[in-house]
C-alpha cells in the first residue's frame, strides 16, 4: 500500500511517500502501525486531532476501512481558497 504525506506531515516524516505492507483494517489502526516505524513517524502522528486522512483520494474519517486501498494519504487540515 502506498502511503503519502503532505505539508508538515511530509516534512516531519522526511518523505512524501512510502510503500508499506500492512494488515491494518482501518485508518486509525494504520496510524498506530505507522507510528512504530520511526521516532519521526511517532512525532508526526502524535496529535491525531491535527491530521486528516484520504483513502484512494477520498477524504475519510479515522474509522474508515483501508483494506484493499491502493493509496492512503495523511495531511494537516487543508488551507486552500
Amino acid at each position, binding site marked *: 500500500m502506498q502511503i503519502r504525506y503532505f505539508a508538515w506531515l511530509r516534512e516531519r516524516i522526511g518523505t512524501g511517500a512510502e510503500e508499506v505492507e500492512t494488515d491494518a483494517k482501518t485508518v486509525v489502526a494504520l496510524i498506530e502501525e505507522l507510528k512504530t516505524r520511526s521516532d519521526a513517524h511517532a512525532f508526526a502522528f502524535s496529535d491525531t486531532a491535527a491530521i486528516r486522512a484520504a483513502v484512494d483520494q477520498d477524504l475519510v474519517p479515522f474509522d474508515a476501512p483501508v483494506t484493499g486501498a491502493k493509496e492512503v494519504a495523511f495531511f494537516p487540515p487543508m488551507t*486552500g481558497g
Partner: protein
Amino acid sequence: MEVEVRDSAFDPGATLNAFTARATGAGAIVSFTGITRDLATGDLQAMEIEHYPGMTERALTAIRDEAMTRFNLVDALVIHRYGRLSPGETIMMVATAAPHRRDAFDAADFLMDYLKSRAPFWKREITPDGAEWVAAKDDDEAALDRW
C-alpha cells in the same frame, strides 16, 4: 473547463468574460477571487501552495458538482493555483452563473466554504524569518455547518 488546478498565473477578468459569454440563460454571475495578502508584519516574501495531485482535481470536481446539484445554476467554475506566489497575486477564483442572483451568490459562497476545508491545498508563508505552514481556522470548518 469547470475545474482547473494550475501552477501558472491566470487572468481573472478574461476568465470572467469567457465564463459569462458561454453562460447562456444566466441573469446573474458572481465571481470570487482570492489574493495573496501580505502579513500584518508586512514581510511576506512568498506564499507556497502544496497540493495533492489527482485528489485535488477529484475534490474540486466533487465540490463543483455538489454546487450544481444544490443550486439552480447554469454553470460553475473553480480555478486554483499551486506553487510559489508573490503578495498581490491571484490564488484562486470561483464563478457561478444562475438565472437569479440568490443562487449565484449562495453557490459561490458554498464553493468557497467547501474549497477552504475540503480541497487538498496547504499554504506556507515565506518570510525573512523562514517558512511557516498556515494553520486551518476553526471558523472555516464551522462554516460548513451552514450548508
